[in-house]
């Protein structure tokens, strides 16, 4: 293979150290650094300057936003980048090539996996999505009442670098205040007919901008003065504001929220304030809950029932998808593995098309074809029936497998065709000599040889289908929904679409339980892969 006859110094077996596990490259290879000030060096300098600028910008904004975690990471990553690319030592060579990919891998793959693992042990979700301090602030704002006899303030909403503020005119003076700063007069503002024209250092939001930032405007509370009893201004429409005072106050000593009628809502240790009758104040905050989320998944009274049926269907779906696509693909591959077949290449090109067509589009097209009332299959192919292809729990499963068969068989056709062609024809010739029949040749030669090549691909295909969110979500949405269950789970939900529903689509966005379920999926896929892994050649290639 490696034919460079001009250089017969070292024999190929000696030279090819990819497989022999020697710790150092042979002495004859010396990777020198880019020397001099050529084009490459200039490009490197420019790139490194950009990276440093980018990193410093991030460090400064992280400082301003008080995101200490991001700041520390950026600092370390930037120092590492400069060391890797500027230290003149050969030991940094591999790092030069690995660094860019590793950074992305660290942040968007490893970190998110670890973060998922950490979230799985918290009650993170709607109503528990921030710190206790934030929950207290939010509660104080939610439970408030208009100050009796408080005057009406005509206001304008201002913006200074993303911080909202309110401005009002009183006795001809313009007063400005923000969440951190009580109303106080400013100099240099101009007023026409009682309406504020300009305030130095601020932009005045027009009606459209106020509408666009409606939630932030609603959340804004501007203290009227330094005395909290006077209340804080709140505006619902961006034009008029009224002073409000909180009816619920945090009592630090008692670690409880106290209402103005004397009711005490105590911290229950589960991330919420709970009143005497057991009523919970929303929002609560995020706390560590140990294995509670996992317990909820396995508890038949909570998620246990859906979890078991969804898991079973996930395995059935993944295994059947692989099996069906593989057998159809193999069948066609054997059919076309005949050089005398006319139009063979035309057939191949056509069968290739479903693979080339973007899957998310073909799934949606199938959803239209299978529509019970207007779809082509019911209306035309079956002459106007009303078969609920996607609305009956069992038919929906069949439809999913059919669509996934359509999506997947070209891939299996392609790989089995390749594998069939790589089986040496001498094997078949000697089998013919020994008088083996077609069935025996298939069982003794084709299948074993095929599995060596295609086996790992079947595992990979299983793993992919195990988490095939697109086909489930776009074809049936996991439905038809199980109306008896409060979780929103449907008959065709697989684990990953179930996670999606728990996290985003259900009534409560329960990130904690969703993460715990993700971890369980990780474990299932890992176990299946590990079991089959030992047989694959992948490990041997590493040395």
């Amino acid at each position: 293979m490696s034919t460079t006859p001009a250089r017969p110094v070292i024999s190929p077996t000696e030279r090819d150290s990819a497989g022999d596990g020697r710790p150092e490259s042979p002495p004859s290879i010396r990777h020198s650094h880019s020397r001099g000030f050529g084009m490459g060096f200039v490009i490197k300098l420019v790139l490194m300057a950009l990276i440093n600028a980018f990193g410093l910008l991030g460090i400064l904004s992280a400082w301003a936003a008080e995101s200490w975690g991001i700041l520390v990471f950026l600092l370390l990553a930037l120092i590492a980048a400069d060391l890797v690319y500027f230290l003149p030592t050969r030991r940094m060579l591999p790092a030069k090539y690995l660094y860019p990919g590793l950074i992305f891998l660290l942040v968007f793959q490893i970190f998110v996996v670890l973060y998922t693992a950490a979230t799985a042990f918290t009650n993170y979700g709607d109503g528990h999505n921030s710190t206790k301090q934030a929950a207290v602030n939010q509660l104080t704002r939610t439970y408030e009442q208009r100050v009796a006899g408080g005057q009406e303030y005509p206001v304008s909403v201002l913006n200074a670098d993303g911080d909202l503020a309110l401005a009002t005119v009183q006795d001809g003076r313009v007063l400005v205040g923000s969440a951190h700063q009580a109303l106080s007069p400013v100099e240099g503002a101009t007023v026409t007919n009682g309406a504020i024209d300009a305030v130095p250092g601020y932009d005045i939001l027009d009606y459209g901008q106020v509408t666009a930032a409606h939630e932030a405007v609603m959340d804004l509370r501007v203290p009227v003065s330094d005395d909290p009893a006077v209340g804080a201004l709140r505006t619902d429409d961006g034009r008029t504001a009224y002073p409000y005072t909180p009816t619920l106050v945090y009592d630090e000593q008692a670690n409880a929220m106290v209402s103005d009628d004397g009711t005490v809502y105590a911290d229950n240790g589960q991330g919420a304030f709970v009143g005497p009758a057991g009523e919970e104040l929303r929002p609560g905050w995020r706390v560590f809950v140990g294995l509670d989320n996992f317990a909820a998944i396995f508890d038949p009274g909570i998620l246990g029932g859906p979890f078991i049926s969804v898991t079973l269907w996930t395995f059935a779906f993944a295994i059947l998808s692989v099996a069906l696509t593989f057998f159809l693909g193999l069948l066609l591959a054997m059919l076309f593995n005949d050089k005398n077949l006319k139009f063979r290449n035309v057939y191949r090109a056509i069968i290739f098309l479903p693979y080339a067509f973007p899957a998310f589009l073909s799934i949606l097209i199938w959803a239209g074809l299978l529509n019970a009332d207007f779809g082509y299959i019911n209306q035309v192919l079956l002459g106007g029936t009303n078969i609920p292809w996607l609305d009956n729990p069992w038919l929906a499963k069949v439809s999913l497998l059919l669509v996934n068969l359509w999506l997947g068989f070209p891939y299996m056709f392609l790989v089995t065709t390749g594998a069939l062609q790589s089986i040496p024809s001498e094997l078949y010739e000697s089998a013919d000599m020994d008088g083996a029949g077609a069935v025996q040749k298939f069982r003794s030669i084709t299948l074993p040889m095929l599995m060596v090549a295609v086996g790992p691909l079947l595992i990979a295909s299983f793993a992919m289908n195990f988490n095939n969110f697109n086909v489930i979500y776009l074809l049936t949405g996991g439905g038809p929904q199980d109306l008896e269950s409060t979780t929103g789970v449907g008959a065709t939900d697989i684990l990953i679409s179930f996670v999606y529903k728990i996290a985003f689509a259900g009534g409560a966005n329960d990130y904690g339980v969703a993460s715990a379920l993700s971890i369980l999926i990780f474990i299932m896929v890992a176990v299946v892969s590990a079991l089959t892994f030992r047989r694959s050649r992948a490990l041997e290639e590493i040395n």
Partner: protein
Amino acid sequence: MSTSRVSNVASRKPGSRSRLSVGQRFARGGWKHVAAVIACVFALFPLVYALSASLSPTGSLLGSNDLFAEITGANYRNLLNDPQNPFLRWFGNSMLISSITAVGTVLMGAAAAYAFSRFRFRFRRGGLMSLLIIQMFPQLLAFVAIFLLLFSISEVYPFLGLNSRMGLVAVYLGGALGANTFLMYGFFNTIPRDLDEAATLDGASHSQIYWTIILPLVTPILVVVGMLSFIASFSDFLLAQIVLQDPQKYTLAVGLYQFVSVQFGENWGVFTAGAILSAIPVVLLFLFLQRYIVSGLTGGAVKG
């Protein structure tokens, strides 16, 4: 193993194929053609249906059932002239996001594969093993964490945070090393090392060897990996839906889904028109690169 089992078969029937009569041959071939045509109809019919629906004048699901009864471009006109659903922008977004992802994935994956294949360093074995394990965990599963991470990043780099196209690219690039380094690594190992040595003797630096000698030789695998990562990000629905919130920034997958998620039947013509237009570049790319892809597939690549 299998050969020895075969050679044990006692009876002999040499050359059974050559003794077929013309009639038998025709029967066998004819049967194959029937099966092939059925397979082709199965493969083609949803696509043909979509093409017909996109050209139908009614634009509804029910009205699309008369295949090619009447052909108009009305759906295409509506698709391209809808300010609420800026199809061309989505198209541009998808192309931009997927192209950058593909190029980034190829560059970073190839660099990593080169390091693992050509250098010997302390964490090499451990690194390869870790990659093999990490690639088993689909990034998709961590979507909750990705959402929260981008939320925090928004405060530091607004152009990389939630609701930004580059943020989505960054997320996709997080999967660059895990997914395909292994595929590339195997391919890099097949390039003989004498080439590196010769170049080193001639005074080439490691980067010159990488860019001018190795990369041109591994082009087939680069094409496959780039193509697969293009398709994977082009087809991704879940992450794009979580990250992108502004209709102006949608990708095709998120945008076209809007057509059918509300009023499924009503927008059918417009949706199919969008589907046909979006699929054309991808299908062409696939057909154009078919040869490379087939070789890459047998090497272990899976399309998302």
